[in-house]
């Protein structure tokens, strides 16, 4: 049974309206660009998107916002995004903000079959409202639960035909804990190689977490805050 798909369109062929999808990346770094473009092209609507950020106005998840495809965003930081703000203030978009570490751990828990765990993040704040609170060793924690998502869509640098993945630099971010967090996890990679070409000691995500893999056609890798020092 091959995990290899020709392109993003085919990899998301059965992703339909009103689904919940988890998307990797931090800001615009390590986002599944090709899959997002395919989602725009496909025009699926009413999506609940779980992703650390919401892209910028004309890139990343901002593209899905532009086309009114997102019903709800679950993020830790939605940043500077005028269209996002407009839709939110107009009541066209729901937003759930959760602490970044909690988001990462909930994704990991989902993939790892852990239904709930305790974290100190958000204790005593509005994040804790409605959540179970408990003391361990004299410190207060709140209980957080896993997600339920139809798809998880992530991006890696190299992947092999078994679905094994290697990330490059700071693109590992949410992509790794999101691997396996959707009923189906799709990985788009910059380079797809035959199984056996990756060193088994250097693989970041074992292929078992990945159901579909394809080589992206083009990666723009836009930089959100180009910052340089003078010589």
């Amino acid at each position, binding site marked *: 049974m091959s995990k290899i798909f020709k392109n993003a369109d085919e990899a998301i062929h059965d992703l339909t309206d009103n689904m919940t999808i988890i998307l990797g990346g931090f800001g615009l770094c390590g986002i599944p660009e090709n899959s997002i473009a395919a989602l725009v092209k496909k025009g699926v609507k009413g999506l609940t998107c779980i992703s650390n950020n919401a892209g910028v106005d004309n890139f990343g998840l901002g593209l899905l916002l532009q086309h009114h495809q997102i019903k709800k965003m679950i993020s*830790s*930081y939605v*940043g500077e995004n005028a269209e996002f703000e407009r839709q939110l203030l107009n009541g066209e978009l729901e937003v759930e903000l959760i602490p970044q570490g909690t988001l990462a751990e909930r994704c990991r828990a989902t993939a790892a079959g852990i239904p709930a765990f305790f*974290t*100190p*993040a958000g204790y005593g704040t509005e994040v804790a409202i409605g959540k179970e609170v408990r003391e361990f060793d004299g410190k207060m924690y709140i209980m957080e639960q896993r997600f339920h998502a139809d798809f998880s869509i992530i991006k890696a640098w190299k992947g092999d035909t078994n679905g094994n993945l290697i990330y490059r630099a700071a693109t590992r971010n949410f992509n790794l804990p999101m691997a396996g967090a959707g009923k189906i996890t799709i990985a788009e990679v910059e380079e797809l190689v035959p199984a056996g070409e990756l060193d088994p000691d250097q693989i970041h995500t074992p292929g078992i977490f990945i159901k579909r893999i394809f080589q992206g056609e083009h990666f723009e890798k836009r*930089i959100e805050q180009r910052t*340089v020092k003078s010589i």
Partner: protein
Amino acid sequence: MLDKNGIAKRIARELQDGFYVNLGIGIPTLVANYVPEGVNVTFQSENGMLGMGPFPFEGEEDADVINAGKQTVTILPGGVYFDSATSFAMIRGEHVDLTVLGAMEVSETGDIANWKIPGKMVKGMGGAMDLVASAKNIIVAMQHVNKAGESKLLPKCSLPLTGIGCVKKIVTELAVIEVTKDGFKLLERAPGVSVEDIQKATEGKLIIEGEIPEMVL
């Protein structure tokens, strides 16, 4: 009175050899410029990097190498990349020795508010709630009063909280203040600033014991 760099410089004196440090956006970022000689610290960026280095030279930016502020950065020799779950394992597990971050308000019991202003567009808490709930050692870098001239050191925060009872120290343009169980304890005055100036700018309970020394930068 200190400027932003002065605040950063004073905070940098809190760095100890071997510390792993997470710096928030804004003034905290400037702390990296003033690491004392002979003190070796490692900067953590919560998006997945230890050993964060300076910004790259023009033309050497790498879209895959950014910090938590989404800025292009570099990695130092001996640095390491990791994923977000591992990153917050470091933070939550108290492996990060010091967190420096900005705030809108701090209460005399160490509560901090720095993510949300009712009625304004909320951008999100990012990693701030994890950082303040976890760090053994949290220093807030901020202005003593807001743009409206109101004190940011309060008996109780008025804004939605980021975390409770977590701030250990505050460094502002006017003073270094420790958060004790009895309230804000004045430790140091900024150059040219009087105890009265600080008292006037502090709405929360300010504890002044003995002679308050001027900061050494």
